[in-house]
């Protein structure tokens, strides 16, 4: 069984839209209005061309499994073994996440497998974006 509590994010003014999005069931990314670069994690300017003209948009929630480890030691709020994954979003950016509705084994976690976002409520304020197999 898991001991302790999973650490949760403290949103900042620059990231609040993202966490408000997950709470509303939306995966919000940003795109540069000048160079069209889509990026993550959030910041109020484009990390490619430094333009401050950026827009928030809702990502499709489709992703593929880019890489991961399966942690076998205890961590607060987790029951080992559990996978810590990095997924590649259909829009391009990558993000760290957990894979749910899937055995936490190398056999089940196949690189490049299709995934879709799942919004996992943690508290009234925080909902974490996780991913599950697209067919699940």
């Amino acid at each position, binding site marked *: 069984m898991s001991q302790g509590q999973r650490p949760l*994010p403290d949103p900042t003014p620059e990231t609040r839209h993202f966490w408000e999005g997950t709470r509303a069931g939306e995966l919000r990314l940003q795109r540069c209005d000048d160079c069209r670069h889509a990026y993550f994690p959030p910041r109020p300017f484009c990390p490619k061309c430094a333009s401050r003209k950026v827009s928030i948009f809702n990502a499709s929630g489709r992703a593929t499994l880019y890489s991961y*480890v399966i942690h076998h030691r205890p961590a607060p709020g987790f029951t080992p073994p559990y996978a810590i994954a*990095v997924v590649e979003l259909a829009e391009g950016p990558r993000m760290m996440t957990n894979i749910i509705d899937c055995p936490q084994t*190398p056999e089940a976690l196949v690189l490049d497998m299709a995934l879709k976002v799942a919004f996992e409520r943690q508290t009234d304020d925080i909902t974490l974006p996780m991913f599950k197999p697209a067919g699940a």
Partner: protein
Amino acid sequence: MKKKSVAVVGAAETTEMGSIPGLSQIGLHADAALNAMADAGLKPADIDGIATAGETPVTLAHYLGITPTWVDATAIGGCSFMIHVRNAAAAINEGLCRTVLITHGESGKSRVSGSTRPNPARGSLGAQFEVPFGVLGPPTMFTIPLLRYLKTYGVTQEQVAMVAVIQREWAAKNPRASFKDPITVDDVLNSRMIAYPFRLLMCCLVTDGGGALVLASANRARDFPAKPVYILGTGASVESPMVSQMEDFTSSRAFRVSGRKAFAEAGIEHKNVDHLMIYDAFAHLPIYGLEDLGFCKPGEAASFIGERRTAPGGKLPLNTNGGGLSYMHSGMYGMYALQESVRQMRGIAPAQVPGAKISVAHGVGGMFAASGTIVFSNEQP
């Protein structure tokens, strides 16, 4: 002789290595510093520059009784000391100071005091977008890119295990190494699972220790008792504080940029390198390092290691102290890679590479977050 050139004129590790419960973190810094100053025949009044990580230059200056005119508190993980060497060389060449002391000390095992591995600050991007998903220290982060590398190049876990096996061969030659008994690929693959695909023997040790260097202008190098080791070239770079945001999981941009800069500055080619240190916090790092520094093509480093090119008797002796996997790893290992390069250039390493003239020490900071590279020679440039 090059007009502007800097040399290592003093180098030493802590008196003990591995388990040192009798010293706190600042004590380990001081023990190493006193040993390096003795090696250089210097007293505190002779030092006018301080660079350190883990502790601040203020703490160190006060503790050792030094009044510096130049300080560098660069603290970006285990390669900080490579970057201190790079910055100190520039400072000496610019006349900002004459004699620089660079120190490291860490009570990684005994935890007497100090901590150099703070969690990402509350509200930071790492704390918001990585920590909630169960990362807990380097074994859960540094390791994440490897499965992508293995799939991209068709490299096997057995090949990665071989890195640890060969480094143990080097460690067997080093009386101060923490682990000296031979191991096999099966031993590595059957050791306790930490974070799949990483088993215990693919992860670095956790020990106590420290090291220090003294740098001065090369035209003063002959005034010191020890054989000088010249700095031919240096490089540095950074990428992302979050491993999930690394551009390419099969290659480190920071490694590539830092390595290229150091090789270009030194004016050397890969075939000139007689000895190589690549910071090995985990078994995949020498593979990434060999490729990103340009010793191997992408995807070929594991075979290169498997063919014993970096093993005792091989053409490119790598991590000859046993590395972070078998020698020691206090937390910020870069200092020990530098120390082994200096020993090899002085001709006094336990596993001495006969006739070695050029040594490269390549460090990593954070989880592929930062990098520093130093090219040393025992021949005056």
